[in-house]
């Protein structure tokens, strides 16, 4: 039994590594399609971790949560985005970032280190195998927020939000694995509605403003010319 648990725990460590890799990938890729792929990778790592924690800590409810997350995050959300956001936007490279990618990676590294220290403020994980989830989830949250801040395109910004949510869940699952099932079921559905609504909003933005470079949206401010 001991070796079995050790195996599950080390697999969870692998999932955490993949999760962090996904977060850095979101930061580093210039292709919009690449953004979606790294988001998929990150979500799959999240699903794997939920599944492993369900086994390791014996919380059968979490298996249902993992299945629902599997259906919604890596599959349904990218499909919805493909459906609502024009194809040509997906083929594009993003050239307009606030900071260049090497600088972003260095900042990302600093954020990850910060997350390790900040994790001490949060309550510890419910079981020893989840210990790694708290700092990695927090790093995912910070990296997602940073991605959101430096990206200037609609789709990467939206994925930045999902990355923040992924980070919250990745840490949260380990801290409170026995959250009521109804609530845990509500989270992914919420994300689904967000993807739908913002996908449509992206299309409208493209139609009305002629670009999805949302960084260029700056007509509303104090003292703006009429």
């Amino acid at each position: 039994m001991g070796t079995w648990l050790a195996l599950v725990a080390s697999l969870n460590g692998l999932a955490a590594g993949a999760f962090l890799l996904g977060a850095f990938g979101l930061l580093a890729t210039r292709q919009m399609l690449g953004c979606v792929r790294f988001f998929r990778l990150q979500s799959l790592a999240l699903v794997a971790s939920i599944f492993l924690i369900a086994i390791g800590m014996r919380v059968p409810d979490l298996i249902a949560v993992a299945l629902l997350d599997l259906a919604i995050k890596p599959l349904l959300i990218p499909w919805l985005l493909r459906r609502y956001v024009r194809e040509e936007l997906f083929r594009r490279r993003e050239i307009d970032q606030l900071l260049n990618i090497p600088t972003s990676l260095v900042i990302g590294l600093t954020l990850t280190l910060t997350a390790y220290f900040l994790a001490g403020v949060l309550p510890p994980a419910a079981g020893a195998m989840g210990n790694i989830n708290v700092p990695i989830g927090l790093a995912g949250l910070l990296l997602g927020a940073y991605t959101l801040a430096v990206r200037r395109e609609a789709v990467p910004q939206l994925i930045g939000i999902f990355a923040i949510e992924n980070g919250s869940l990745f840490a949260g699952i380990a801290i409170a694995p026995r959250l009521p099932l109804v609530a845990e079921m509500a989270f992914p559905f919420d994300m689904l509605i967000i993807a739908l609504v913002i996908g449509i909003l992206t299309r409208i933005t493209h139609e009305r403003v002629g670009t999805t470079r949302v960084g260029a949206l700056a007509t509303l401010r104090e003292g703006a010319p009429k």
Partner: protein
Amino acid sequence: MTLFVILALPLIAAIVSALPLGRKLAPSATLLAAVASVCLVGRAALTVAAGHRVVAVPDWVELDGLGALILLLVAVVGTTAALFSWGYIAREENSRHLRQYYANYNLFVFSMLAVPMLVEPALVWTAVELTTIFAIYLVAFDNTPEAVEAAWKYSILTIMGGAMALLGFIVLFHAMRFGNEPFTWAGLVKLAPKVSPEVLESAFLLILIGFGAKVGLVPLHTWLPDAHSQAPSPICALLSGVKTTVVLYVILRFVPILNASGRINVDRWAIIVGLISVGIAAFLILQVTDYKRLFAFSTVEHMGIILVAAGLGGAAAHYGAVYQILNHSLTKSFCFFAAGTTLLAVDTRQIADLRGLIRTSPIAGVALLFGGIAIAGAPPLAVFLSEFSIFRSGIAGQHYIAIGLLAIFIIVAFFGILHHLNSMVFGEPMPQATPMTPVHLPLSSVLTLILAGAPIVILGLYMPSFLHRILQTAAQGLAG
């Protein structure tokens, strides 16, 4: 059971609104559902104020004092805004857009009604997210590039806040390990003394940052003036009047929990964050160029005032906080109805383009003047009384620095609002701003102005005893 009916009404209205059966069906259904829900909510609030419990599902869907006040405000502003929409949205020629507007309107009201009656924090998070999502379409309704831009900024910043707050709610659930209580607001208050303080404090800070973005607390307020100026006016009334309050209510739920813990100084956080918002907003009010943005910044200011009042501590300050919540919702929704009427009359949002409104359109001019004076906090209107009660409780509690700063900021905002109003309402009308034909304001707009304006005057002179009881129960909820 009553609570389920209250939730079902806007859902039914949303479905009926979506049916393509004539242009009058959607507004009538919406108004009917809103009026019915005001009656039911009023009855439920009175039951709560009388000391009884209104429970639909124990530990999940319940109504307590604080929730009852917020529920009542959502229902009331939901009704006046539905009435105002009648004439305001009728300009929209495309019937499909009209139906979409009302369907989304009802869903938005539904989600706002759900927040105060849910007592399980994780579900509250979901409901708050829904209020954000359902409002996106409504903000972008005018479909101009500016409206789309406002909707984009609004959705990105507030949904990001929601994703951060999610971690806070999960951390909060961790507190359940310290004892055997249900995961509800009341259960958390009982449990708080046993929970280690870092759990509660880290949860609170994550939620303060995350939901602070939705409330429009500085520095995450930048989306608020955009969204609240570009959305159609009835939606602005809902967003500024109750949506921000509904989210602030969730943050205020932490005041009794953290106070019960006894080892965390939540009051300090509330006062500092609140004062920063009031101060920045007061000085931004001075330089606005758009009168809807003027009222939007005033919302940021008032959210700060409420937070400061909640942080001052003590029964009198808590009463001041809930009193301010009530007066702000009623007055701010009126301000946006007045701004909407002005927009119908002169078709410009720019303060500089507006002169002598009182001659071009007396109704809009008087309404705008009255709304501005009321929200700035001039006596003897409602906001003045609640702000005064906050000052008094703060001085009694010896918070001299906080109250001194608060008073300075409120006075700056007061003169800022009056300065802009003076230049818009009085003076000689500009020749190009005068319409060729006299403006015909929709009857529903005038009716809304009377209905929404009456409580502001009445509450300034006299506090009905039933409302006083509701406020008292709400203030007790803040004390824990």
